[in-house]
């Protein structure tokens, strides 16, 4: 039987990681209205980048930076062609991209080995991504012996990065830049008539969102200690969407609340699995039936989510409304 305190810490850690992931989707969908249905791929890119970086002896901080950069750059380059598409085409393309990325990671090592054998006839033992067997990821924090202290260190790491991400997204969304993103969401054509090159903003939103998703992926990988392509199924993308929509579209606190709620459902399923033993129903199935059904209910009856988007309180808005700033 697992230690209940460790179990609670594990859930708290996941809430922190998925809080960052939900914030990243909130930039893309919540503020800019972009249907990124391939979030899992960007978490996966971050996770694998961090894994390979620490494996090659790089400092964890550099590994995190690399994850953010690689994921962001891939996000921007994927968006270069995908952003001209309508929202439904964008959704289909990014979803297909995520599936293909997973497929490539799963088959990369075998393919490279086969190609080397094919061209040079030499047997090689290249092992970059680990294929279906996945990769063991070394933890960023090492406190030997004391497992509880180790967990506290991990929690402080993720929550300080969550706080930084929250502050970043909050300042971004309240700034004039954030208002342009919202304008694109509300009416792209109108924003273009005001002289805004909307595709550049959309590209930046995907880039920032992917970079943050890469950070979440790296943090998750080093904590779980093991990643495989199967950890990044479309279920993960869907869970992040659920967090943003349930918590409140275009509300950063809402994204965090959504992450806490969705991860609590996951925790309940894990709890049932680890502490209650045999059940006639598989808790994982129950979890996804529940999550899938609840998003339909949320979309139908509370489409704005629990915490609704609020008007921005900045001097500029007040000047526009009253002609002066109070105080």
């Amino acid at each position, binding site marked *: 039987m697992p230690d209940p305190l460790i179990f609670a810490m594990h859930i708290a850690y996941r809430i922190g990681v998925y809080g960052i992931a939900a914030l990243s989707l909130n930039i893309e969908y919540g503020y800019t209205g972009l249907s990124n249905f391939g979030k899992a791929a960007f978490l996966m890119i971050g996770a694998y980048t961090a894994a390979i970086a620490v494996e090659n002896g790089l400092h964890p901080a550099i590994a995190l930076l690399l994850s953010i950069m690689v994921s962001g750059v891939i996000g921007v380059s994927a968006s270069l062609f995908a952003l001209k598409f309508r929202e439904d085409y964008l959704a289909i393309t990014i979803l297909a991209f995520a599936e293909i990325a997973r*497929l490539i990671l799963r088959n990369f090592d075998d393919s490279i080995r086969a190609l080397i054998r094919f061209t040079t006839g030499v047997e090689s033992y290249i092992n970059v991504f680990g294929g279906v067997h996945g990769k063991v990821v070394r933890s960023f924090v090492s406190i030997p012996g004391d497992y509880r202290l180790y967990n506290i260190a991990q929690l402080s790491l993720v929550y300080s990065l969550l706080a930084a991400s929250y502050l970043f997204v909050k300042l971004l969304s309240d700034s004039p830049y954030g208002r342009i993103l919202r304008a694109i969401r509300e009416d792209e054509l109108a924003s273009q008539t005001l002289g805004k090159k909307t595709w550049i903003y959309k590209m930046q939103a995907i880039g920032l969102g992917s970079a943050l998703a890469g950070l979440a992926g790296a943090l998750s990988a080093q904590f779980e200690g093991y990643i495989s392509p199967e950890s990044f199924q479309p279920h993960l993308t869907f869970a992040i969407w659920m967090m943003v929509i349930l918590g409140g579209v275009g509300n950063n606190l809402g994204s965090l609340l959504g992450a806490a709620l969705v991860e609590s459902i996951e925790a309940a399923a894990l709890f049932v699995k680890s502490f209650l033993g045999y059940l006639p129903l598989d808790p994982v199935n129950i979890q996804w039936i529940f*999550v899938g059904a609840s*998003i339909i209910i949320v979309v139908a009856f509370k489409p704005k989510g629990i915490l609704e988007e609020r008007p921005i309180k900045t001097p500029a808005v007040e000047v526009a409304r009253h002609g002066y700033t109070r105080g």
Partner: protein
Amino acid sequence: MLSLDLPQIFFNSIITGSIFMLAAIGLSLSYSLSRFPNFTHAEYITLGGYLAYLLSEQLGIPLYIAFASSFLGSGFLSLASYIFVFKPLQDRGSPMIYLMVASIGLGLVVRHIIQQVWGASPLTIRVVWPRWTLGSITVTGLYIYLIAVTIATAITLHILLTRTIIGKCIRASSDNVELAFSSGISVSSISRFVWFIGGGLAGLSGFFMVAIANAIPLLGWRLLIPAFAVTILGGVGSFYGALIAAYVIGVAENFSVIGLTALNLPTDLKMMVSFVVIVLVLLVKPEGIFASIGGGSRA
């Protein structure tokens, strides 16, 4: 080293293309009538496959009854998801992104119910099919069955779409929903009909996938990306476009398998064909390459 057995490749392409066609027609038609890509469509395919397993393997009922039940079961699931989930959401004015999210959610519900009932491990139907060898290619009764069903479906849909009132209504609604509505066509009853037939055909593709290979909960999800490729290459809502696109992608996929095998690469990578098709078509001609086939009108 690279030996091209063209008759065999051609035959395999017909098999793949036929399954893609059955899987994609409903997706394409419901996409244009209801104006959102329905990701639950994958689960109509999966359910059809598992119903085939349930009836023919678990209950020992003759295969043609299992065949009919795959069609009806998936058709009714599709109809129910339209009536009870997507239509009410559209009536509430949900944006397209919400409809897509809801369709993924509904898909998860259906997939995990299936996984709860039948488990996650692959299940096979043990039926011995007669076999013939024609030159270098081997043909089984199952393949003949699949090709016959596909031809019958294509001819029936062609007659339905061109010769009957309901078919003309479907084409009109697919072309322009508002215009069809203002001309007195009951778009919602047309939609219900299309969702039922489309779901049923997806169920048939699941039936054949399970008969050829095996039943897994991800059966439909694996066919969904090729089905989207067919939909987009053929033009959303175009029946004749989908018909041609299915076989084009079938041929492309089978040639990619030959290439991958020759290079000793994993054949799983054949899925990239569909992805490349989706991206290229959307970049070059988003309305679909074959959309104008069939007298210029979409159907």
